[in-house]
């Protein structure tokens, strides 16, 4: 979680909480009415995937991607046939960041995450980098790797 040590002005109020807590406290209506500038700041400073998903569902995928100035650079299907997309985001400082869109095989919900491999050119490369080593099982954000033998992903749920 991003801890912000000083108070900052956000949506007309001074806050000294981290962005995840602020977004969790805000009503859907207030999130929906945030300015694009505040929303962009919120989306770039919150790193809780569930809160990010909640905000995206409130504001809609189209506005979410527009605010982040996201452009699709690669698309493919994952192992169970769900679509994945890799976006490039250019922020106001013209810093490029890669964002990965995946569908949770268990819930069908869409998640967006910044993959550790920011040089990735494909969705698979980006997705693979979200675990520090090859895993045999994936249970949401929990990966399990066999200590001995092959680690080919056999179950993802």
């Amino acid at each position, binding site marked *: 979680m991003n801890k912000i040590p000083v108070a900052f002005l956000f949506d007309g109020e001074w806050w000294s909480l981290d962005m995840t807590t602020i977004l969790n406290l805000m009503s859907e209506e207030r999130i929906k009415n945030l300015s694009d500038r505040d929303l962009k700041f919120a989306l770039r400073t919150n790193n809780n995937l569930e809160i990010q998903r909640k905000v995206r569902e409130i504001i809609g995928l189209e506005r979410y991607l527009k605010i982040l100035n996201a452009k699709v650079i690669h698309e493919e299907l994952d192992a169970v046939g769900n679509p994945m997309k890799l976006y490039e985001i250019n922020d106001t400082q013209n810093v490029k960041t890669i964002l990965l869109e995946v569908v949770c095989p268990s819930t069908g919900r869409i998640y967006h995450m910044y993959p550790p491999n920011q040089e990735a050119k494909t969705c698979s490369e980006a997705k693979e980098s979200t675990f*520090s080593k090859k895993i045999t099982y994936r249970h*949401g954000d*929990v990966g*399990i790797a066999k200590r001995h033998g092959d680690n080919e992903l056999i179950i993802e*749920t």
Partner: protein
Amino acid sequence: MKKNERTQRILARGEVSGHCHVVVGDVDIEQDADGRIILKVGNEGAVLKHLLETPWVEEEKEVWTGEHKDITLSPGVYDYVPQINYDPITDRIVKAID
């Protein structure tokens, strides 16, 4: 099983949804010198479940969240590998949080 043992079996938890990823069954969970979590699954096997944390920790009740089906782990040694993200603000790699 004692409460602290039930807590120890939690590999990861959701910050806002009250869920947790728990290993139940014949398993010892240890930490190596580098802080990595190792699962030593015995002959009876173990299961990775996605449960509500409070009923599990307080009453040993297995209340499934309805998300992430059980994964059966056969006897052997496994490493827990947390999902990681890039944090564009701090320019660091951090553990994924949900």
